[in-house]
């Protein structure tokens, strides 16, 4: 989907009725839990160009994350950034199955999801740099990027914190009688949070259109899944919640895409949520200061040999859809996009005005020395 999706301007979420709090909508939402005729989903087969775009998007995420790591090392980037390198096929494959009706929520290792959702490299990098031009005006940073108007309901710094929110998005879609779904990305660590159980139970019981995508990258910070989970087969838990489960190779972008397409179709039919476990690996440590003493060089090398970008590139070259020369050209384009994003964020973008620090804490009210005071807002 890559470039095409990136250029796409998804329409703002259509709400039931008007936006203003004072004007109730004229038409009732009505209960629409009955099975629907299958609406048109994302295209099942990809054109050659679309396949190349998937590769490009994965390369952009890798390039972005390598740049982030570099900027952290040079202390140009402040704060924490959990980089997604190694897991690109999960976000890109999953998001390629979405349409403009669909939402997604993300987690603390979320740069890849935002970019795969069509995120703009410049706005992403600016947000990570805490600049006014960033997606969230520099208030969110690495762990809190959202683009709600384009259906990205945001990332969260609380492990497992997005599962109930995604479940609520699914509830809204269902109650509004719409055919969208919500993709919910989280890690193996989050699967041990209470929110996992509560959310999947609620979604399973109410047959909510939510696709829970657990990116099993083997470690919750330093603790391996074997040391954390009584039962390591995460997708096997799906049955406990009355939903379908699928385990996929998270290094294979098309395999992830297929599984998510199938899950989305099921959800659109009214047949409820799916739990997908995508087995993958994060190349870097949990964060920049992580010395990775909890895993071996051999293990890291094994996964480097199963690199999602290399695997897909070789597949496309094998199918004669790509040449080495074309790949090099692609890499050069990606590199120049990353360099432009760095320039935009680091050099060209201003920091937010300190006078705006209290903006948008509340809707319609602003904090003053004396407390909250009512203001006029657009809402």
């Amino acid at each position, binding site marked *: 989907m890559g470039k095409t999706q990136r250029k796409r301007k998804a329409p703002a979420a259509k709400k039931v009725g008007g936006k203003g709090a004072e004007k109730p909508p004229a038409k009732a939402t009505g209960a629409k839990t009955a099975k629907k005729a299958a609406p048109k989903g994302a295209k099942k087969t990809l054109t050659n160009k679309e396949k190349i775009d998937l590769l490009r998007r994965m390369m952009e995420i890798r390039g972005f994350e390598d740049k982030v790591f570099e900027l952290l090392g040079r202390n140009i980037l402040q704060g924490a950034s959990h980089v997604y390198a190694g897991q690109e096929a999960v976000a890109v494959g999953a998001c390629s199955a979405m349409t403009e009706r669909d939402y997604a929520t993300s987690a603390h290792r979320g740069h890849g999801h935002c970019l795969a959702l069509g995120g703009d490299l410049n706005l992403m990098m600016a947000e990570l740099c805490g600049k006014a031009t960033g997606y969230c005006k520099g208030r969110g940073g690495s762990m809190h990027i959202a683009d709600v108007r384009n259906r990205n309901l945001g990332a*969260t710094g609380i492990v497992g914190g997005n599962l109930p*929110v995604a479940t609520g998005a699914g509830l809204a879609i269902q109650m509004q009688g719409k055919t969208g779904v919500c993709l919910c990305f989280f890690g193996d660590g989050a699967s041990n949070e209470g929110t996992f159980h509560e959310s999947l139970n609620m979604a399973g019981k109410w047959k909510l259109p939510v696709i829970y995508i657990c990116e099993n990258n083997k470690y919750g910070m330093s603790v391996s899944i074997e040391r954390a989970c009584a039962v390591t087969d995460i997708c096997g838990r799906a049955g406990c919640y009355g939903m379908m489960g699928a385990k996929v190779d998270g290094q294979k972008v098309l395999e992830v895409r297929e599984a998510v397409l199938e899950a989305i179709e099921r959800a659109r039919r009214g047949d409820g949520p799916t739990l997908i476990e995508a087995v993958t690996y994060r190349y870097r440590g949990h964060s920049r200061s992580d010395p990775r003493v909890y895993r071996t060089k051999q293990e890291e090398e094994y996964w480097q040999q199963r690199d999602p970008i290399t695997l897909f590139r070789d597949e496309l070259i094998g199918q004669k859809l790509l040449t080495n020369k074309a790949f090099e050209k692609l890499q050069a384009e990606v590199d120049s996009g990353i360099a432009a994003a760095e320039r935009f964020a680091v050099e060209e973008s201003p920091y937010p005005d300190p006078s705006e620090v209290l903006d948008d804490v509340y809707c319609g009210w602003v904090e003053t020395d004396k407390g*909250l005071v009512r203001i006029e807002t657009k809402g």
Partner: protein
Amino acid sequence: MPQIMYREAVRDAMAEEMRRDPRVFVMGEDVAIYGGAYGATQGLVEEFGEERVRDTAISEQAIAGAATGAAMCGMRPVAEIMYVDFMTLAMDQFVNQAAKNRYMFGGKTTVPMVLRTEGGAGRSIAAHHSQSLEAWFCHAPGVFVVMPATPYDAKGLLKTCIRDDNPILFIEHKMLYKEKGEVPEEEYLIPLGEAALRRAGGDVTLVGYSRMALLAEEAGRALAEEGVEAEVIDLRCLKPLDVDAILNSVRKTGRLVLCSEGYQEANFVCEIMAKVQEFAFDDLDAPIERVCALNCPVPMSPVLEKEAVPSTEKIVAAAKRTLARQR
């Protein structure tokens, strides 16, 4: 004017808003068939059906979080958390997700949701079902905290909260559900952040909210019998707070007693003390008194429970202490 119970006022507010706006729906533990642990959702499922009045599993995180997600996607959820003590389980979803999403996401989203809950002591159900934890939520930027004392306020404020675009914690009081009060049949709304003057007087200011506002009013009557005219202010909302109502009264009386059922240490009224000394220090004739719950878990035994939380007598005594101080 018809007299209705507090719990009926809460129910009527939800019913009216659900009739008015199809985006409004109710969910929570035991809210549908049972009608709510304290009866505040009685009759809603009969009128609106199970799609819009949803019994949930006992899953406070999922309730609060699903309300957050649904609100961000165009709905107006009114979710019930049975006891404010159980808000501990919903804490992350409310104070980390709902409260912060608008700010963190650059002001590009709204989270129009109400979490209804109830608190307070008085039923001998001990420390997990009797607390007043409002201060915890006042400490979280991004949320409002509303605590009505009367049926009239409960209805008018809840309707306003449902139409507001901010995440709001609406804390009812378990001892007030059966209390009756006058509520007009015609529609009305009460703006957020406006305190109510329960009694006018020039000698001392008594400030309370929720059930403590009623006790303060009772204390005001008791003081009047002794020739002391107390001014009684019911805050109704802790956030947004009507600071001016407090300051104006203090400027008149010079003496202030703050009443809260929350634990004394780091109680929300400490914030009021800070505001008053900041903006009306020269108007004070005596140190500010506070009447709060003792700093121990609310005990079960009725004798101990009574001792642990404020009473009318304690408020009267505090008022007298401030009055005894000569400038």
